């Protein structure tokens, strides 16, 4: 299984999508690359079992989300093995509101951000999020609600000033 060409095919086809997901989860290129690399290493180690039982991509995305909210970062063993390309596309987002929201996401605790990314980027239901992160649905809802509240008060949004929403 070490040299399973299907693993190489999977990485070739899906790595960029995983990096995009890692980028919105973590908010920066380095952590995105780090999360993707670590999750793929774990996928490789579990490849034959994962292929028998579930879809490798959902498995990898689940690992990335759990890694991101876990204590893994401080214990991590390896540095990134590839250099990030120069001149990343750090263009400004299309509107000021989006730019403000992206910056506000930076201030959220990891779990709140992960829940929001799974809900609004991955389009998962709260029940699915609960399965991905291994937390209860009630906790998913409270993280989502806390996270949205913080975003609302952080961006200069019409409702932010009086805090009337939610």
């Amino acid at each position, binding site marked *: 299984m070490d040299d399973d060409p299907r693993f190489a095919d999977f990485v070739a086809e899906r790595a*960029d999508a995983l990096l995009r997901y890692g980028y919105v989860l973590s908010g920066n290129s380095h952590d995105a690359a780090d999360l993707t690399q670590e999750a793929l290493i774990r996928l490789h180690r579990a490849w034959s079992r994962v292929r028998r039982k579930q879809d490798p991509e959902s498995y990898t995305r689940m690992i990335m989300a759990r890694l991101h909210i876990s204590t893994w970062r*401080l214990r991590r063993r390896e540095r990134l093995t590839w250099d990030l390309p120069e001149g990343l596309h750090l263009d400004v987002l299309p509107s000021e509101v989006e730019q403000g929201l992206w910056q506000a996401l930076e201030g959220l605790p990891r779990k709140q951000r992960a829940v929001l990314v799974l809900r609004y980027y991955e389009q998962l239901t709260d029940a699915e999020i609960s399965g991905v992160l291994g937390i209860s649905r009630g906790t998913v809802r409270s993280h989502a609600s806390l996270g949205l509240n913080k975003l609302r008060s952080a961006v200069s949004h019409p409702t932010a000033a009086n805090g009337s929403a939610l």
Partner: protein
Amino acid sequence: MNDDLEDVLRRTLGHASQRAPQAPSTLSSQVMTHSLRRRTRVQTLVAALAVAVVASGAVVAVRGAGGDPAPPVVNPTQAPSSVTATPSPSGKQAFVTPEPIEKVWPQAVWKIPAKLPGIRKYQPRIFIDDRTLLLETWGSFEKADAIYAYDLDGGQVRKITDIRTPKGVFASGYTAGAGRIVWQTIDEVDGGRVTEFWSVPIAGGRPTVINTAAPVKGGGDKLTVVGDKLAFSVIEGGVFTVPLGGGTVEPVAGAERHHILRWPWVGTPGEYTPNKEASFEDLLNVETGETSKAVVRPGEQNVRCGVTTCVGERRGSPSFYRLRDGSQERDLPGSAFPGLAADRFQTVFSPVPRGGQYMIDLVTGESGDLSLSPPDAKGQSIVVQLGVGDSRLVSYPIKDEHVVIDLTKIR
């Protein structure tokens, strides 16, 4: 407006995702190499990370936060034997490989045979005293089945006891004091963690459980023997004591959310901080009531503090090392691992030879090469990473030997 915010959030995440980096074409082969390397590395890291403490290990060269901390007198990046530049291609030219650790710190380094008569493959766990090492053998992966005392002077090995644990339950957290070896097992009961403590005379015998009036809820994260008591903290937060002979578990006043760093210093948050807080930012001396808050500046990440010092990262700048009060800040070599053993030691990747690592003493600026082999044909190699706190033992295998370092012997 709620809908608006949700819509904007969807669009923002979608647009932002387009800024992600692209994967290199060699990614899958790199991942496979790492995966194979890790297979052999796991055991090594377990040994290296389990840099454990002896209760009397207060001989560490740095004193308490309120005392007279040993200052970082040398800028490690200027030391002749350390990396003089960040790990850019040009940095490699400036690198001079340090002397091996056994030449730099001969009083602190031992090499012991990987195969000892009468026992299976083992992992060094803690120093029982200055001359005696606690070894653990495994019945299956990471599952201890016996512990031994190894005499560093004479090279004899003696079984202390067999250990039997239920399926899925592991002995961990070894510490020594009051003539006994103490450890924990963590089990799951009704979905929650419950910890039991065990002890055995160092002279040998059968392990006995330390009876507690009520089950200890939570997973133990650090154990230390204090007089005739066991002090421990739990992963969930909270410091407690229990008589070594069994009895009531007493919470330590003022340490309800704390973790043991180096007794009597306990702190919050603990070593692992999922929301990017600095580990051990706040400290409390449970004997004197003295407190210490580490200086953490905006934009700093992965800050990890010991009793006297902190290391951390800043985007776009070298990592730093400084005293808890923020003074005497120094830059660190670019490719250091994030640990900070005994407030002063880190391991760093050597640019040459590939796969090499050296250990640096941030107080004196001295460094010693760990003499690790470069990755073999399968890409397998060993990585030595230090933890935070009162680590005393560092050990790792090389060929047919275990290298053992006693950090308290480095002054």
